[in-house]
């Protein structure tokens, strides 16, 4: 008996019970206290880097856009930065402002999304509903400017694909202004809420040293007093030409991560407004007409809502890269859980694991394979058929209900 370990394992995953994303956490617990964490990933590895080697430079932004549905402009942003780094071209000023505007608008929607999810993880669904209600106009604005609520397809090597029409600017301004008030009110409510304070303060603390050692990025490191922000440190696009502040807090707990994200939302609104004002006067085109990528190598990055997205491309002078590397911020942030979860209780683990705003699809498409025969069980056609069948079922259900209403 004496030698028997008291440690037990609580598995979370491979499908995350809350985030519906595949990641496997093994919590080693003694009683309620987490003593060790094991992380397994790769359940959703899509081989984007290999796919990119088979595509042309014009196609790659579309591919990398699909890495993540939430920060879908971050990867193309970093991608075009890397290509322009190889070719050493400068894009027109107007394109820079449009890029910055899209990048920041995305941060607003992503941070509000996280806040809602955080509330949901805590079982506090009022926060979730409120935050997502405020996020909705941002998606409408995206639709107005880019034509899509998601996957905007705005980025191309050498510029942007769509211009922002002058008549859309007042509407966009109005939407942004109308956002500030409810978000401010909401920030105050959320940050003074005794339930949120009790659940988030001094939970999942990540020290400054941990962040530096593990290379944590984005709000995860900025909440621990590490002021890393590539928009500020390595200015690109229009970030060096607009007025904004890097938000840094010191405590490193989940509460501070929430504070950083909420305050960053205001900075993003500030940047978006400045960009729109500039777009009224700056009219030097939106495309540098980059026709060729010379041989060489290039590094591009963008501060996504979750931290720095890093892309590296190596060109041999043809229209396809010979190597394309993508690193999403979660790849650096997920290992910080080793430090942030251990020492706290199991009930704190869910929110701490969510506090870095992990994006597994960033780091890693589904393929159902029979383990014995190695044959693919579900192909493209099967999935398409399933989806059509479901649509038909829904339509029948909906139509029959409509019939009842109308008759």
């Amino acid at each position: 008996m004496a030698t028997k370990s008291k440690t037990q394992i609580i598995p979370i995953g491979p499908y995350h019970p809350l985030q519906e994303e595949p990641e496997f956490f093994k919590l080693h617990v003694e009683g309620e206290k987490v003593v060790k964490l094991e992380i397994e990933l790769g359940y959703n590895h899509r081989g984007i880097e290999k796919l990119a080697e088979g595509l042309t430079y014009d196609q790659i932004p579309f591919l990398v856009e699909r890495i993540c549905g939430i920060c879908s402009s971050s990867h193309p942003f970093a991608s075009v930065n890397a290509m322009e780094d190889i070719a050493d071209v400068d894009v027109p000023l107007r394109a820079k402002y449009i890029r910055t505007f899209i990048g920041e608008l995305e941060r607003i929607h992503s941070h509000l999304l996280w806040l809602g999810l955080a509330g949901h993880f805590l079982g506090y669904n009022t926060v979730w509903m409120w935050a997502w209600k405020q996020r909705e106009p941002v998606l409408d604005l995206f639709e107005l400017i880019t034509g899509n609520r998601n996957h905007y397809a705005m980025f191309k090597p050498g510029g942007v694909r769509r211009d922002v029409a002058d008549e859309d600017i007042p509407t966009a301004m109005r939407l942004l202004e109308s956002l500030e008030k409810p978000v401010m009110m909401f920030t105050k409510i959320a940050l003074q809420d005794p339930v949120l304070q009790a659940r988030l303060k001094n939970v999942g603390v990540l020290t400054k040293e941990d962040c530096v050692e593990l290379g944590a990025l984005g709000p995860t490191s900025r909440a621990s007093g590490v002021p890393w922000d590539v928009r500020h440190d390595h200015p690109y696009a229009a970030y060096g030409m607009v007025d904004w502040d890097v938000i840094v807090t010191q405590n490193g707990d989940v509460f501070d991560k929430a504070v950083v994200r909420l305050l960053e939302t205001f900075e993003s609104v500030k940047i978006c407004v400045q960009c729109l004002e500039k777009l009224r006067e700056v009219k030097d085109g939106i495309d540098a007409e980059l026709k060729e990528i010379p041989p060489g190598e290039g590094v591009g990055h963008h501060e996504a809502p979750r931290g720095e997205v890093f892309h590296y491309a190596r060109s041999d002078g043809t229209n396809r890269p010979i190597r394309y590397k993508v690193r999403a911020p979660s790849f650096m942030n997920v290992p910080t859980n080793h430090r942030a979860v251990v020492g706290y209780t199991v009930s704190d683990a869910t929110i701490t694991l969510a506090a870095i705003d992990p994006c597994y699809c960033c780091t890693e498409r589904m393929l159902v394979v029979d383990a014995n025969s190695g044959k693919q069980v579900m192909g493209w056609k099967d999935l398409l058929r399933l989806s059509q069948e479901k649509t038909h079922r829904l339509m029948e259900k909906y139509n029959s209900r409509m019939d009842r209403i109308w008759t």
Partner: protein
Amino acid sequence: MADEVLEGIKAKFGGAIVEVFEKSPRRTYITVDPASLPEVAEYVYKDLGARFSIATGMHMVEGFEVLYHFALDNADRFLNLRVILDLDKPSVESIATRVPATEWIEREMHELLGIEFRNHPDMRHLLLDDDWPEGNYPLRRDWKDWRGGENGNEK
């Protein structure tokens, strides 16, 4: 300002520097002798205070290339340390104990490209399944799918 960094590295590790390529003031590529990589990386990380961004492994004609991308956030500059490894048996000393942030990416490069990182603390699979066959490296140019197809497609 920018050159202080380079001069410092050259003064300290002159013999270990094979080639320096300054693409632009913001991007510097330094080819390092693989034997001295851990010391140079530690110097860049600890003494220069660089942030480890990520590493890229590549299967090239001349050999396997590993590029360690370090960001100098206070100088708006990327220092990329390059090592070129043997084609037949790519192997390099791990820097994961000196620069902890490299632990995952070295595991990834090991399983996808088959580069050996000596003395790495935990060399299990990261992204691939645990029963992925030995000696099967998907990011190598000559990779054939062990299930029979090519480039990840079913036969």
